[in-house]
């Protein structure tokens, strides 16, 4: 049954559909141990960069593992291009980077990429070409023949990203893609992902780095305690709905001056004239705090504050120690060719 749907608003093909997805980890006696994901429904369109946000134990990694067929949902359904994620034909169109890049330490980067290419049944010449391109893209050409066991964590992460792209996948699933990378490498990875999306590839990622998510994601979903708390575009989620913005044409400066003068006269202060926008980090923290106040975390590890939440509860000056990415506009990597 082909279930590829068209989104009503943008007429874009919906390639990933999660319906009422639930995952419960049970112990040997079938008793519920952890409710990792509960009634999660999400749709992702082709060419979209979709981010999953949430503190530790919120169900992000479990959701991604179910997407690539490594875990079986307890209930609900997953459709990738109208198929089950567990079919080999679906996995042929997927690229996956797990949270930890656990590659074979006795292989070199070139051998590892060639091995994963073989699993995709790529012809030898095609494999060699792709491996060379990916090694160059990830900046590993000079260490391509050294065993991965001798690499730093960031370098291993780059090899992990390269193997996720070896088959030129339609859908790329990345769990913490920039974890362990320096700011420069992180920027490069984000540029690559953005560029892939611009060329029709669908990227689904999870991250703790809110700035990264805000920088490259078209839409985000916030998970807490296994439940979906919010989903939408970054703009939609960050707008303050309880406040009004009076929008004036730029040309009508007299009217603007009159309104601001009247406000200044009546309120005694200078009004802010701009588009109001919340910070993603503030929004995220507020959402998590609300969720914590309203319910008690029973099975999830999220009852304890996660590292991200801890970080975000610090002062404003600490926030700037995280690598801030530049605007995503104009950062696309134009070197990536169009999809076939």
């Amino acid at each position: 049954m082909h279930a590829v749907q068209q989104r009503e608003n943008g007429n874009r093909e919906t390639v990933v559909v999660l319906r009422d997805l639930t995952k419960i980890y049970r112990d040997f006696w079938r008793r519920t141990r952890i409710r990792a994901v509960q009634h999660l429904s999400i749709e992702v369109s082709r060419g979209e960069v979709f981010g999953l946000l949430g503190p530790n134990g919120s169900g992000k990694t479990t959701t991604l593992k179910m997407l690539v067929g490594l875990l079986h949902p307890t209930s609900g359904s997953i459709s990738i291009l109208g198929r089950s994620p567990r079919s080999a034909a679906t996995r042929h169109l997927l690229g996956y980077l797990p949270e930890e890049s656990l590659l074979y330490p006795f292989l070199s980067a070139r051998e590892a990429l060639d091995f994963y290419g073989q699993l995709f049944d790529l012809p030898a010449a095609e494999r060699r070409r792709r491996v060379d391109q990916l090694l160059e893209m990830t900046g590993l050409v000079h260490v391509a023949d050294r065993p991965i066991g001798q690499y730093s964590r960031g370098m291993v992460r780059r090899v992990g990203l390269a193997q996720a792209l070896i088959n030129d996948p339609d859908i790329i699933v990345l769990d913490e893609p920039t974890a362990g990378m320096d700011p420069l490498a992180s920027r490069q990875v984000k540029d690559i992902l953005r560029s892939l999306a611009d060329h029709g590839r669908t990227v689904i990622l999870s991250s703790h780095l809110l700035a990264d998510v805000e920088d490259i994601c078209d839409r985000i979903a916030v998970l807490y305690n296994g439940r979906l708390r919010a989903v939408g575009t970054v703009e939609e989620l960050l707008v303050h709905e309880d406040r009004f913005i009076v929008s004036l044409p730029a040309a009508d400066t007299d009217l603007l001056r009159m309104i601001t003068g009247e406000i200044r006269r009546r309120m005694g202060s200078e009004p802010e004239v701009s588009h109001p926008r919340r910070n993603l980090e503030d929004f995220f923290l507020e959402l998590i705090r609300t969720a914590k106040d309203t319910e008690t975390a029973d099975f999830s590890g999220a009852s304890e504050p996660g590292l991200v939440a801890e970080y975000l509860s610090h002062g404003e000056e600490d926030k700037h120690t995280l690598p801030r990415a530049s605007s995503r506009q104009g950062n696309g990597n134009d070197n990536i060719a169009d999809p076939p």
Partner: protein
Amino acid sequence: MTISPIHREDGGRAHRPSATCPITALMLLSIRRSVRSRLLLALLILCAGTITFVPLAIRGDGTPEGYLLVFVRYALGGSMALLSVAAIWLGCLAIDAEFEQGSSELLFSKPASRWSIWMGNLAGAAIVLTAVMLLAAASVYGLVRLRIFSVAAEPEEKSLLRERLFVARRIVCPRQEDYRVRASRLLEKLDRNRWIGAGMARDEALRMLQYALAVRDASLAPGQSRTWIYDLDNGLTGDHAVLLKFRAVGPTHGAAALFLDWTISEGLSGRTLLEKQIRCLPGREETIVIPAAAAGGVRLLSVRCTNPRVNRTPLTFDPARLPWLEIYAGGFEANYLRSVIILCANLVFLCSIGMLSGCIFSLPTAAFTSLWWLLMVNLAPYFHTMAGKRFIFYSHHEVKSAPTFWDNLFRLFFSLLDRLFYPLRITDPLQQVVEAHSIPWSQVFYEVLFKGVAAVLVMSLVAALILSRRQYIRNP
């Protein structure tokens, strides 16, 4: 820098990845792992050590047969024991290490089927183990030739060794009479005369009568003779001597020697080929050599044994092991190669047992389970014997007329074990090589096709099913 796209028919949606490519990839990966983790080196060193030190530790009796026994049976057998444990360990590690180290998460997210992942890993481990086994077998063969031929100085002695030791012989047993008809008639007669006890089951009485008749036919009173006929199919070529072997026992297992007169003649014409009196010790295997020139062209051989009155005692042969012929069936090398093929098939089988256990359990449990399997397949002949017995529990104080509940229960238990493990039993082809008994190709095919292919395929399907249901959880 340009990353070029991969062109796929139908956007890749109709793509069905082949099974061979992942199998090849995983096989090469498995070999690389063995080489780079120095496992292959360790196995080679251990086997070399076994082949070097076993002959130094077990000196043998100094005869060529003794050297063959020490080198082939003990040194190569020791290497096989070592490789059997290594096969189980490698098998357990192959899949379990993927889960323990976390690389399974990447591997199982790729389009390779679970079956091809299992088969690829097995193929790699099998190649490594087979390579080590072949190297060990080649080394032992070289040492055997070097050591044994250094004992024989003269060309005649070397020729004799080739004829006597470096051969493979097949066993021909005499035509066996079917005692069922005679036993049935006897039983009817005894029944009419009310000689059969009321408590004895009829089938049990029939079985005992058959055995009694067979023993009577295998026994010789003083002055009595017996003749056995041997069918030699296509006849003897006359290039090689034929051995007649027997083991006779007297009424008591004393050390007194017995004298037996043997007359060997052609079955059809009655032409006498050999007449010989043999002095033999009860219970010991004796050999009569029928010269090659005399045996040429014979299709039916008649062997007559007389117990001379001088012995003053009856003697008997084991009814299940009447005097047998050993006929040349090929050279040592071919026989040795067949035994090595069987050993390699057993290694693949053991490795797949380890891999199947590794799919189900974590490493220590998998290793324990595999060793238990190894024990069971080695005990399979014992289960077979026990399953064939009517009475499991014996008492010296009573004669049982019928099996008890516990006899039946344990016989059922042994029958189940026999059904399960006897087809998978681990044979010892090296013993056949040392005894110069030809290993028939049927045995090689059975071992390779049943254990190396069929059993492995069944295990691969079970493993694929288990792996497809297994979930990939690391710190959920």
